[in-house]
């Protein structure tokens, strides 16, 4: 626990305690991570390909359990309560996730995509409530003014960047406490990317954001805290400013200066 390279977070909203994950019995993809996540901040997770970033991120809303045979040890606490012991459905409503490729539901309109979480779960809402959620969520992702006249068109007609913002709106419709994003801009062009970065910075006023990124300048631009993972371990965790100006571990420095990864 008392690793000098790992920042200690006071009153974390999320805390990972000795988290270990293995896809099969032979080896761990995540090897005992201890870290707290600060509320209403952006935390970036970096590290070379295959170091376990996605595995760890997916564990935080238990999406990793979709892989049969996966084993999880340790605890992940949301406001002190172990999510690994909670009902998966409740966990996923409190902790939203956005993926690398925009994935709006192709059979649904923009409007229905935003409230998909309610619709698919069979939650009945009044028209006024739905309208309110759709407008608020689309305003949150700065998409409202672009699509307010075409809400009943299919979500798949939008551009890649708009689709990704729609997917963020879909996750925000539940007003989750934490928003997880796994390389959300790696399939997008620079303009669409910077729009998403801007909105993440705005969203952190109300949401806690954890983002996996391969793009170091992105982490430097938007995140408050950064993690550097290597071979399933958390090597270094610090305020982003400190880590980028003064990395402690040699491996972090090598990664940040592009010497490997």
């Amino acid at each position: 626990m008392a690793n000098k390279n790992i920042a200690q977070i006071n009153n974390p909203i999320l805390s990972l305690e000795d988290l270990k994950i293995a896809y099969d019995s032979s080896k761990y993809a995540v090897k005992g991570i201890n870290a707290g996540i600060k509320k209403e901040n952006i935390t970036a997770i970096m590290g070379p390909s295959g170091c376990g970033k996605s595995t760890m991120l997916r564990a935080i809303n238990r999406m990793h359990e979709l892989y049969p045979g996966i084993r999880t040890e340790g605890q992940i606490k949301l406001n002190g309560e172990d999510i690994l012991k909670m009902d998966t459905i409740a966990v996923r409503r409190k902790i939203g996730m956005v993926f690398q490729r925009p994935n709006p539901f192709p059979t649904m309109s923009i409007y229905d995509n935003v409230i998909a979480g309610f619709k698919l779960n069979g939650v009945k809402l009044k028209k006024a409530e739905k309208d309110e959620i759709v407008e608020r969520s689309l305003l949150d992702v700065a998409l409202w003014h672009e699509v307010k006249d075409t809400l009943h068109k299919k979500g798949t007609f939008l551009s890649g960047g708009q689709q990704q913002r729609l997917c963020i709106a879909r996750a925000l419709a539940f007003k989750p406490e934490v928003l997880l994003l796994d390389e959300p801009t790696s399939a997008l062009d620079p303009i669409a990317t910077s729009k998403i970065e801007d909105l993440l910075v705005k969203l952190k006023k109300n949401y806690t954001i954890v983002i996996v990124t391969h793009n170091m300048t992105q982490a430097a631009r938007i995140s408050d805290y950064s993690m550097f993972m290597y071979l399933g371990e958390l090597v270094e965790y610090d305020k982003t400013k400190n880590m980028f100006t003064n990395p402690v571990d040699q491996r972090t420095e090598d990664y940040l200066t592009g010497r490997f990864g």
Partner: protein
Amino acid sequence: MSIALDFDNGSLVAKRKLKNSIFKVGMIILSILTVSPIVLIIYELIVKGFRQINIDFFTQNPPDTFEAMMAVSAGEVIPGGILNGLTGTLLMVLMASVIAIPVGIMIGIFLYENPGKIYSNIIRNLTEILQGVPSIVLGLIAYLWVVKPITGGYSALAGSVSLAIMMLPLIVRSTEESMKMIPDTLKEAAYALGVPYHRVVLKVLIPSSFGGLFTGILLAVSRVIGETAPLMLTTLGNPMVNWDITKPTSAMPLLIWEFYNDPNMVDLIWGTSLFLMIFILIINLISKQIAAKKKIN
């Protein structure tokens, strides 16, 4: 260089050209041979059956032999139609679909969700074997399972069961194939919203693969709609329109067989065949259309 010279050699070039054209002519002849049966069949059906297709054809039951004989000897169109066969086919294909579609889709989804498992492979192989079972054997099975113990005699229900067993492998297969086309990211999106498994299946997987499922169902329908052998053993036929599923019922292919056994009804054979053929063609065209549209998406 000698190799270069060989390529420029005039007689060799001429030989190659000749070979090419022989090959081309051969291909054209073979293509014509392949296409001609279907063209000839349609031509034959139209020429011989066209006269019979009128309003009565769709609104009347078949005439008795005497009426037909009188019409034929007077050189007139045979009176009456195939209403009993039309309604019987409709009834039985509908009922077969009601049985085969949900079961087939569920099995297909099961196979898609458990692709590598041993029991999935066993089920997959068994459905393939089922597809190869001669339809008359399925008729015998339905006779054994339904005609004797359940309806106590020939019945539409028994006919539907035999048709449903025929439809099943096609629907299972098309369901599994069209589910495989759905990107995994879509399922992830639903799970990440906390949607439970059965709702992911009903609200995401089935709607997203609807085009493929529908195509498979149409192909299965067009496959069984002309089946005669299993119906002979299970529903027998009925000179009147029948909607009671526990009673013997007519069907279009059964009528063709009955008309064939009556020398006065020859024209009705062709009329019914023409109609059945056009019907199946249309179903096939619609399903191709849907499949093509699916591909573009």
